[in-house]
């Protein structure tokens, strides 16, 4: 079974990793929300994410632009 890819978002290299994260990657946010990257504007700041889990239940299934400093981890996809 293939190991789930984890993306290192910290340090200098993390900026380029974030900027180029592909669609399908799962993000876990600092507030506990979990979602999938559905689009990347490649602006180095944001990713468009569809939430599967969210502390605010009304946001589950919704898409929102997530800023890089709201994210705890990124994994999976591809």
């Amino acid at each position, binding site marked *: 079974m293939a190991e789930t890819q984890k993306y290192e978002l910290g340090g200098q290299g993390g900026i380029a990793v974030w900027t180029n994260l592909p669609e399908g990657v799962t993000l876990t946010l600092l507030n506990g929300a979990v979602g999938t990257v559905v*689009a990347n*504007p490649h602006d180095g*700041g*944001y990713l468009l994410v569809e939430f599967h889990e969210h502390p605010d239940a009304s946001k589950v299934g919704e898409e929102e632009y*997530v*800023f890089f*400093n*709201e994210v705890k981890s990124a994994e999976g996809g591809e």
Partner: protein
Amino acid sequence: MANLVRALGDYSLASYIDGENGTVSRELYVNSEIFEQEMEQIFQRCWLFLGHESQLPNPGDFIISRMGTEEVIVVRDRKDHKIRAFLNSCRHRGMKVCRYDEGNNLVFTCPYHAWTYDTKGKLVGAGFYNHPGAYTDTLPKEDWGLLEVGQFTNFYGSLWATWDPKAPSFEDYLGPFTHSLRHCLQSSDGEDNGLEFFRPFQRHRLPTNWKVPGFTSVTDLTHTAMTHRSAQAAGLHQDQGQGKDKPTKPFPQEKYAIGDHLLGHGGMCTFYNEPGVPEYTNEWFEPGVDDYFREATERKGSKLIDQIMAPHGWGGGHFAIFPAVMIDSWRLRWYHPHETGMTERWTLSGVDKNAPKAVKDAVRHYSERFNGPVGFFESDDMENWNYVWPASRGARARKANYFYANGLGHGVYDDRLPGVVVNGSYTEEAQRARFSRWLAFMQARSWDDLYPVNKSKTDRIW
């Protein structure tokens, strides 16, 4: 803003234009306070040309255009596919949110504090927006989207906007020129919205006032003989049917200089007196191109077999929409003021969107020969426009007036274009009409003073 000019002394705006003697003060071109007043009272109110929908074929496509001295983002939304226009200025601190001329975007992210806007202009994010120690409940995103134009319209593929939500509809703004503009946006076979425009388009920066080219480069027939003499000698027009195949049956038509003193539009105009279209007579260097256009012209003729074509200018257009758009021969040119003495001229060159590649290539090559950086005609014109500025703005020079009396007093009204003054083709009727409307805009407090135009209290000052 209407009081700005009064600081200069005892001049009133109307005193700068001598309608009786047909002169215009050079102050209108060189005075920076008048320029600022123009930006407020003309470019904030008028319908301005932004571009063509063929520049934005896909969801997320955008172009940067201009309205007066300001940049606007023209973008096709990713979801509803509508085209909208927004000021290119972040609502937070005013930074440009887009610094590319064109492209395809998900969002426009401000590089300053990461306020980010979607393709509907809605604020969808701000740096630290969700941080517990930041904006908490103080930034209602729905109130802080990009500033959208007051009105926007897609007129047969051409995109226009005004900042003023109280401006009349675009068709009312065009008045009798509505059909002429529609005609210019048709393909050679007469299909509406039949053109596409080459990308990237051409830009020239001119060290001159915007009115130098904007008010004089249409219907300025007297300049051609001397200014373009060298280009004529080079035979650049040979491929456009000058002097070769003459029509075997001359099509009944009349050519004039025309000016709408109430709305400000005007230019060269051809009135057609019979249904149908003139016979195709051009000659292109490239093989097959004449066959395409001859067949297209025949198709157009069959569509207009019982209709008289809308009046339009020579070569397909050659008229101006107030304040600063010129349309001729598949080209839309518009003049963007940057400063009192700095103007950018943009040129969109079009071609039938359904034409074969060989035809599109031939038209593009022709456009480049004509307009391009190494083209002939436009560099001729720009040489004049550029030297007008330094030779007109000095302390002595600016006290003199420009002569605009060519044909003064000889214009007549013509029922074929109601309200429009028709004059000899070498006269300056169209320029005078633009100054009539210029003065009306500069004096008006709002659109209530500008439209509907009061025909009994004519704005003709000449």
